């Protein structure tokens, strides 16, 4: 007898636990809207960030090229003046110094351009990763929402099994049944074909 009472009670608990409060369902739906707003905002912000980074990169690349050209022009000008030097040793030393600085200028220019490219790529990558991540968070919420909104979680079970669409209604019906089920355990066992 106790076993069957427990079984009925367990059934009530399971089914009552399956029903999701409407407020939770509504919040779950709202969360999708919140995530849409957030995704749009992050997309706009990301595009703005990349646009600014691109402009800064272009501006800096222009500055670098300008400084490099100015420096090389100075060295070329200086090189023409070495002809005026009478001392061959001094002339040679000056030419070597000019070439050394020209090499350094080109090396530093190349390194700086590469640094700009690497930093810009890193900014773009991180920004795109954030957008992809947000999309995934939305997918998670869609799956959760699908389950939360699902009627199969509990209410359809009630409708199919006992013709009720709410837990309260079902509990009310069960309450009227329980006294009737308070027969001997052997009779119930016989009906259910289960040993007491």
């Amino acid at each position, binding site marked *: 007898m106790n076993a069957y009472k427990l079984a009925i009670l367990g059934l009530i608990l399971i089914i009552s636990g399956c029903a999701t409060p409407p407020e939770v369902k509504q919040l779950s739906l709202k969360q999708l809207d919140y995530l849409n707003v957030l995704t749009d905002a992050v997309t706009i912000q990301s595009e703005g960030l990349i646009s600014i*980074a691109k402009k*800064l*990169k272009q*501006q*800096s*690349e222009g*500055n*670098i090229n300008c*400084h*490099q050209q100015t*420096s090389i022009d*100075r*060295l070329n*000008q*200086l090189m023409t*003046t070495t002809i005026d030097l009478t001392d061959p040793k001094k002339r040679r030393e*000056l030419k070597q*110094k*000019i070439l050394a*600085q020209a090499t*350094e*200028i080109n090396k*530093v*220019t190349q*390194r*700086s*351009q590469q*640094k*700009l490219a*690497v*930093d*810009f790529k*890193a*900014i773009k990558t*991180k*920004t795109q*990763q*954030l957008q*992809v*991540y947000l999309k*995934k*968070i939305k*997918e*998670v919420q869609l*799956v*959760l929402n*699908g*389950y939360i909104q699902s009627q*199969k979680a509990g209410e359809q*079970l009630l409708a*199919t*099994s*006992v013709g009720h669409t709410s837990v309260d209604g079902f509990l009310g019906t069960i309450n009227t*049944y329980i006294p*009737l089920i308070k*027969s001997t355990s052997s*009779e*119930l066992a016989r*009906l*259910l074909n289960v040993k007491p």
Partner: protein
Amino acid sequence: MNEAELERHIQALTLLARTLSEPERTFKLNEVDLFKIQLNGLVLEDLSDNLAQMAPMNTNSIDRAITASLRATHNQAMALKTFDVGMSVLKTVLVASL
């Protein structure tokens, strides 16, 4: 040293270099330009470093969690279907006994 101070420092060095005679004038002016080239190369470094502080965003684990949830939901749906059948039998038996 902030940006304004840096700019003033560069200008001061440039003015000083212009007071020198050749060839030192050329070499020193070029050193200032080399410094400016390096500064321009670092323009995006701060921004890049800031973004690098963001936690790694691994979407593979999220994909696995979504797949597991969908599978679990499907399994539960199957279990509920089976339960449905059992409940129908129980209901029939209870109604018949009453």
